[in-house]
C-alpha cells in the first residue's frame, strides 16, 4: 500500500533530503527529533514533528521503543531510517513489523543475512560476485600455506583461523616471506587463541574502493552504476565520485551485472550498495560487504543517472514495482561530492561546531548542496560532524573538478570550522586531477604537509 504518513527517524542533512523526496511524492512528513534538535531544519520543513528523547543518541535516535512509540503516536504508516542510527538494525525492523508499520528498506532477515560477513560472502559467491580469494578452510602446516598461496597469488594476508578483529595479521609479499612468517603467525595464534590454525587471503595492495548502487522491489532489481570512494581518512569517506573513471566498460558491466544478480538472489527491497576492493594493477575486483541502506554519497549517483533514489526507495517500500528497467537507466557526464564537516583540517580535524553565520551557498547548473544549515542555527555537539555535501556534475571528470573548485569558492559557512580548505586543496592536487589515488593515499598526503593554511 502506498505510504501516506512517513516518520523520519534521523536528523541532519539526510532528514532534510528525505522530507524533500516525500513532499515531492505528496506524502505527509513527521520528523522525529531529540531534545537537542528541536530547531533543526528538518523539523521546520516537516508537516509535523515529535520529540523522541534527550540529546544522547542512545536515548533518542537509537532508542527502538521511543521511535516505535513515536511512529504509533503520530499515526505513521512507514518509517524512513536514513543512514546510520537504526538503518541496519534488524531488531528495529522487527519491532516496526510487529506494530504493522512499514520500514523503508529491506526485511529484517535480509539485514541480518547481509550484515553477517560470512553469510554475505557466501551469498555473493553463490550469485557469481567475486570475493577476495582465500583458503577454503584452516591451514595447519607451512607447506599447506605455501601450496595455497601459490594458487591465490602473492601478496597474501596471513590470519589466525580462530582470530578476528585484525589481530596478528601479516602480509607476505613472497614465498620466502611466507615461510618465515607462517611459523610466527602459528605460534602467535596458538598463544592468543589456543589454536595455531591459519587462514590465507590474497592481499590487495593500495586498493581502490568502488561500490555499486542497486535498487530492488522484491522481485526485480536494477543497478545505477558505480561510485568511486577511495578518498578516505580513518576509513571515513571524504570525496566521492560517480562513475569510477578507472574502470573500462567491460569491467564496469561485469561489476554492475553481478551486483544485480546478488540483489535478485536475496529478493532485495529498497536501496542497497555492494562495496568492492578494486586492484587497478590487475583490473580485478572483490566484494567486501553490502550496505542495506541509502548511503551518504547517493547524490553523485543521482546526478549521474538523473534518478531520485530516495523517492524510488520510498516507492518500492510502499509496495510499488521499480519504475525503470535497466535499459532506461543511463549515465551521463561525471559527478563529484565532497563532505563538509564541522572540523578544523589544520588541527588534526578537531571537531568544531558553532552557530552558523554568513551562510552563502553556491548555485548554478550542475551544482547541488545537500545540508541542514541556516543563519543563526546552533550546530549541536552531540552528533556526527557532517554539515553538508557539495555535489557537482560536469560533462567529464575534468569539468567536474573545475566546477567543484568554483562551487567551493562560492561556499561560505561562518561561525564554525569546516573542511572546505581540504577539498579545495584536493581539487587542485595533480594526483587527484590525474585520478591517481587509492584508499591509502590521503593520510600520507596529509602527513606530508600537503594541506597548507594558504588554501
Amino acid at each position, binding site marked *: 500500500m502506498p505510504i501516506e504518513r512517513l516518520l523520519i527517524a534521523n536528523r541532519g542533512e539526510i532528514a532534510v533530503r528525505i522530507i524533500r523526496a516525500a513532499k515531492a511524492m505528496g506524502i505527509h512528513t513527521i520528523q522525529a527529533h531529540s531534545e537537542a534538535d528541536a530547531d533543526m531544519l528538518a523539523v521546520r520543513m516537516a508537516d509535523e514533528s515529535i520529540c523522541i528523547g534527550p*540529546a544522547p543518541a542512545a536515548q533518542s535516535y537509537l532508542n527502538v521503543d521511543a521511535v516505535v512509540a513515536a511512529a504509533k503516536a503520530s499515526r505513521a504508516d512507514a518509517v524512513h531510517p536514513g543512514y546510520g542510527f537504526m538503518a541496519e538494525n534488524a531488531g528495529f525492523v522487527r519491532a516496526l513489523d510487529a506494530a504493522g508499520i512499514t520500514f523503508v528498506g529491506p526485511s529484517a532477515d535480509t539485514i541480518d543475512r547481509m550484515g553477517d560477513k560470512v553469510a554475505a560472502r557466501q551469498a555473493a559467491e553463490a550469485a557469481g560476485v567475486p570475493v577476495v580469494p582465500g583458503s577454503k578452510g584452516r591451514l595447519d602446516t607451512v607447506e599447506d600455506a605455501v601450496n595455497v598461496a601459490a594458487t591465490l597469488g602473492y601478496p597474501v594476508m596471513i590470519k589466525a583461523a580462530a582470530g578476528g578483529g585484525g589481530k596478528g595479521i601479516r602480509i607476505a609479499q613472497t614465498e620466502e616471506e611466507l615461510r618465515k612468517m607462517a611459523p610466527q603467525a602459528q605460534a602467535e595464534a596458538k598463544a592468543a587463541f589456543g589454536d595455531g590454525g591459519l587462514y590465507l587471503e590474497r592481499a590487495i595492495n593500495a586498493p581502490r574502493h568502488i561500490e555499486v548502487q542497486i535498487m530492488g522491489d522484491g522481485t526485480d532489481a536494477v543497478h545505477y552504476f558505480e561510485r568511486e570512494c577511495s578518498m578516505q581518512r580513518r576509513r571515513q569517506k571524504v570525496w566521492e565520485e560517480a562513475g569510477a573513471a578507472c574502470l573500462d566498460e567491460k569491467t564496469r558491466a561485469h561489476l554492475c551485472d553481478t551486483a544485480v544478480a546478488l540483489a535478485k538472489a536475496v529478493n532485495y527491497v529498497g536501496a542497497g550498495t555492494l562495496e568492492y576492493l578494486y586492484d587497478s594493477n590487475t583490473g580485478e575486483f572483490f566484494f567486501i560487504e553490502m550496505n542495506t541502506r541509502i548511503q551518504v554519497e547517493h547524490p553523485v549517483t543521482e546526478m549521474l543517472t538523473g534518478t531520485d533514489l530516495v523517492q524510488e526507495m520510498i516507492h518500492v517500500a510502499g509496495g510499488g514495482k521499480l519504475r525503470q528497467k535497466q535499459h532506461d537507466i543511463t549515465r551521463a557526464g561525471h559527478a563529484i561530492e565532497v563532505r563538509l564537516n*564541522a*572540523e578544523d583540517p589544520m588541527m588534526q580535524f*578537531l*571537531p*568544531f*561546531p*558553532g552557530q552558523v553565520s554568513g551562510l552563502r551557498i553556491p548555485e548554478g547548473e550542475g551544482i547541488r548542496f545537500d545540508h541542514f544549515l541556516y543563519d543563526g542555527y546552533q550546530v549541536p*555537539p*552531540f*552528533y*556526527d*560532524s557532517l554539515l553538508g555535501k557539495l555535489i557537482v556534475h560536469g560533462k567529464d571528470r575534468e569539468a567536474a573538478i573545475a566546477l567543484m573548485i568554483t562551487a567551493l569558492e562560492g561556499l561560505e559557512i561562518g561561525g564554525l570550522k569546516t573542511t572546505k580548505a581540504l577539498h579545495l586543496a584536493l581539487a587542485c592536487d595533480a594526483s587527484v586531477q590525474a585520478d591517481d589515488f587509492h584508499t591509502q593515499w590521503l593520510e600520507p598526503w596529509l602527513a606530508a604537509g600537503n594541506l597548507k593554511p594558504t588554501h
Partner: protein
Amino acid sequence: MAQVLSPVPGTFYTQAAPGEPLFKKPGDPVAEGDIIGLIEVMKTFIDVKAETSGTFKGYLAEDGAAISAGEPLAEIGA
C-alpha cells in the same frame, strides 16, 4: 589562580568512564600537561590538559555538563 578553559563546545567529563576515579581531586598536585577532563564533541573525545602546574582547586563544570568553547572547567591554584 588559573582557570582551565574548554577548547571546544561539547559534553564535559571529569572521569575517564563511569565508575572510574576523577581525573583530579581538590588538593591534588597538577603538572603542566596533566589531563584534568575529557570533552566529547561530535563523537570524538578530546583530552583537556592543564596549561599550568599547581594545586587542583576543583571543577567548575559538572560531569556530563554541556559546555561551550571558552567556558571555565576547573581551577588550579599556585
